[in-house]
């Protein structure tokens, strides 16, 4: 084995009563790509934050390049050649690329000289690693893929030899993710060490040399990637066998529940995002809408759920039209049996500062079940919340806990429980498992299929092709605001990928 770039010995870290890291030992070889997998809340990010000096370990030792290292601040980590690309980018949105790169590493008290020096250094890095970015572009005007590139450049500019990436592909399109992997491989060839934190097992298999698995704050195993399988890793992560593809029977499609006809939606800039789309959603089937993010799926969802104004077209729910002026009363749609799990649970689906029980009735809080005269019936709400927690295995099982303190997967379960338990006729779900870990994905998929088997109509929009293929009875592919194809669940990934890239359409045109 090559010399270790990093050794972690007996690392412990607690946040109050929560033991985020328990006696962690880890050795990462120089010049390799090392994956760390684990469910949300397994302690991966905490461990890496300790390595980056963001937190202090309660006990344990860190060695960098064989030497014991004391990392008290990110500055110490940077000095030791450790760079980190955070899950939520640490960029100043209204600064230029160059300004972000030099922030904290300015060579001079005056900006002009620092920027001139950084510009030539940046050009060298861009050439060396194939990381092209316009140095004068404003961050918020760049797509997320490029923003991430800036984060990588930022670390390299500081002379990083060890690069930690925390959930780097969560916000990327498949094409952007592929590009990222090419960059990481190139970094490895240049002798850099890459640590990749993720809960997506396919990525681990595709790119890493070794992989370590964390579960509930402990390091449960380290494997050579070649000698392991997705199934084994999933089992190690969750602690039990996991079905990566949920089994389901044939759909028995019934009457049309939701009919979308010639729907056209424009965004706030007046750009057509949904272009003359028509489809039917029947009872007892799951229709999946596939597509690269930003091809109009979000706008389609918002228009159907009455949030966004549609320019033309109609949407019929059980034969009666939905108000498409953007002024629809969401409460009325709920009464008519349309439930919506929004794509962005943090901003639309939940109030993070509320307690779990409050979020579990949000939007249905006028229901007489939860009321006692003009007041909330706290006992009934609590009983209801506890019931949902049990049914949906929401952890921790404390309805009084602030929603922000639940992991992403459990937050998603809170939203799903709220919407599904109202027994809607039509369920619209945006990105059902974004930021959700393997065990919870399995659970959510099973639930969605159970809904279908009860004769509900389910519409799923997801950028995860695996998810679409595993759930859907029919797959609609969106590209540039149009539905460019319909396929059955047996469609191959390659076939759908081509449709998603708009290849077929261009050939036809």
């Amino acid at each position, binding site marked *: 084995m090559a010399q270790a770039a990093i050794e972690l010995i007996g690392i412990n870290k607690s946040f109050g009563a929560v033991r985020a890291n328990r006696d962690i030992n880890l050795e990462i070889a120089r010049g390799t790509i090392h994956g760390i997998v684990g469910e949300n809340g397994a302690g991966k990010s905490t461990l890496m934050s300790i390595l980056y000096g963001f937190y202090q370990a309660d006990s344990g030792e860190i060695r960098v390049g064989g030497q014991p290292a004391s990392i008290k601040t990110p500055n110490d980590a940077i000095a030791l050649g450790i760079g980190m690309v955070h899950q939520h980018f640490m960029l100043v*949105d209204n600064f230029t690329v160059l300004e972000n790169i030099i922030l*904290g590493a300015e060579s001079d008290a005056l900006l002009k000289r*620092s920027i001139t020096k950084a510009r030539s250094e940046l050009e060298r890095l861009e050439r060396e690693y194939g990381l092209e970015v316009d140095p004068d572009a404003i961050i918020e005007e760049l797509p997320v893929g490029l923003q991430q590139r800036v984060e990588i450049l930022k670390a390299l500019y500081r002379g990083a030899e060890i690069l930690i990436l925390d959930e780097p592909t969560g916000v990327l399109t498949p094409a952007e993710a592929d590009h990222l992997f090419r960059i990481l491989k190139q970094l490895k060839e240049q002798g850099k060490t890459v640590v990749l934190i993720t809960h997506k097992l396919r990525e681990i298999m595709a790119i890493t040399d070794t992989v370590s698995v964390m579960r509930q704050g402990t390091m449960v195993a380290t494997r050579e990637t070649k000698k392991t399988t997705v199934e084994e890793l999933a089992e190690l992560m969750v602690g039990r066998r996991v079905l990566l593809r949920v089994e389901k029977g044939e759909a028995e499609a019934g009457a049309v529940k939701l009919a979308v006809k010639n729907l056209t939606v424009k965004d706030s800039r007046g750009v057509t995002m949904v272009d003359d789309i028509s489809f039917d959603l029947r009872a007892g089937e799951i229709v999946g809408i596939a597509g690269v993010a930003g091809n109009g799926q979000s706008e389609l969802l918002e228009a159907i759920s009455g949030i966004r104004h549609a320019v033309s077209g109609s949407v019929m729910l059980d034969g009666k039209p939905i108000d498409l002026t953007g002024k629809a009363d969401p409460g009325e749609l709920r009464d008519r049996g349309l439930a919506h799990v929004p794509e962005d649970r943090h901003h639309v689906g939940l109030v993070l500062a509320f307690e779990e029980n409050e979020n579990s009735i949000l939007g249905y809080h006028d229901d007489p079940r939860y009321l006692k005269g003009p007041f909330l019936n706290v006992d009934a709400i609590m009983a209801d919340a506890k019931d949902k927690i049990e049914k949906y295995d929401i952890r921790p099982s404390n309805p009084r806990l602030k929603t922000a303190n639940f992991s992403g997967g459990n937050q998603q379960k809170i939203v799903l429980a709220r919407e599904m338990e109202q027994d809607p006729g039509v369920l619209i779900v945006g990105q059902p498992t974004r930021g959700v870990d393997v065990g919870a994905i399995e659970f959510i998929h099973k639930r969605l299929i159970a809904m279908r088997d009860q004769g509900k109509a389910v519409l799923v929009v997801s950028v995860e092709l695996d998810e679409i293929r595993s759930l859907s009875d029919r797959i609609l592919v969106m590209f540039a605001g149009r539905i460019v194809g319909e396929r059955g669940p047996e469609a191959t990934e390659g076939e759908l990928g081509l449709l998603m890239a708009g290849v077929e359409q261009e050939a036809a045109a």
Partner: protein
Amino acid sequence: MDVFIAIVQILDSTIRLSVPLLLACLAGLFSERSGIFDIGLEGKMLVGAFAGAAAASVFHSAFIGLGMAILISVAFAMVHGFASITHRGNQIVSGVAINFIAAGSTIILGQAWFSQGGRTPALQPGERFDAIVWPGAEAVRDVPIIGPIYAELISGHSLLVYLAFLMVPFTWWVLFRTRFGLRLRAVGENPAAVDTAGISVAWLRYRALICTGILTGVAGAYLSMVQNGGFVKDMTAGKGYIALAALIFAKWKPVNAMFACLLFGFLDAAAIRLQGSPLPIIGKVPVQFMQALPYILTVILLAGFIGKAIPPRAGGVPYVKER
């Protein structure tokens, strides 16, 4: 020619009246750009005014007065910092508290030390900043057009007036041309980015507040040692709040801030000048209306005429490391 002289005079008092606003506005700019809302500009100006006048009168030196004004104002800024940076308190509450402490303590201390009903003794020449007459100002006074402009508008102001206007390009330079400025703007937008870059968020914000304290100290000294010959209770009279309004109006940019403050100063000057004199067509306008005009205009301008003003994104939010 009378009209011309009148306009020059109004512009002259515009400059004088906008100086405290401008200094306070730039003070607020440093603090808000770093992500700390500072509603306590008013209070810091007030303690600055009191400390300046009191020290100048006791030590018979304008510069000792100015130094003391800055010192005390910075001390108050540090209290705000201790509450809102170190202890992550609510910035608005802390600012309001500072305003109350300032209003009360200046009167109590003034009465205890000088027994003049909360005032400080009238400042003698040498204890205040006098007007600086530029060379040749008297000689050219009678030259048409240029004469009055040079003699009235450019010459004949105190040191602090020139200082205030020099602070505009200086603030711009600090913010947009130095490392400190880059970091200061960054910490107001995304403190986590600054933290992960290995820079201390707290120390950076404290330094921004020191800048704020210095400028509000100068603004206070100007009120009690230039505009007035001593401290009078509540002499800031809401200027700290108008400066905050000007800051929003200026979209947190130094040069815009200067124009915003000049506009508010001009409205003030016009209101004073036009009091009691009938306007053409409209006739006599009540004094109260003229006095209210700057405030009415502030509301109208802020309500819709400046487009969307986007404050620094991390403004008002204490920085807590995410878990």
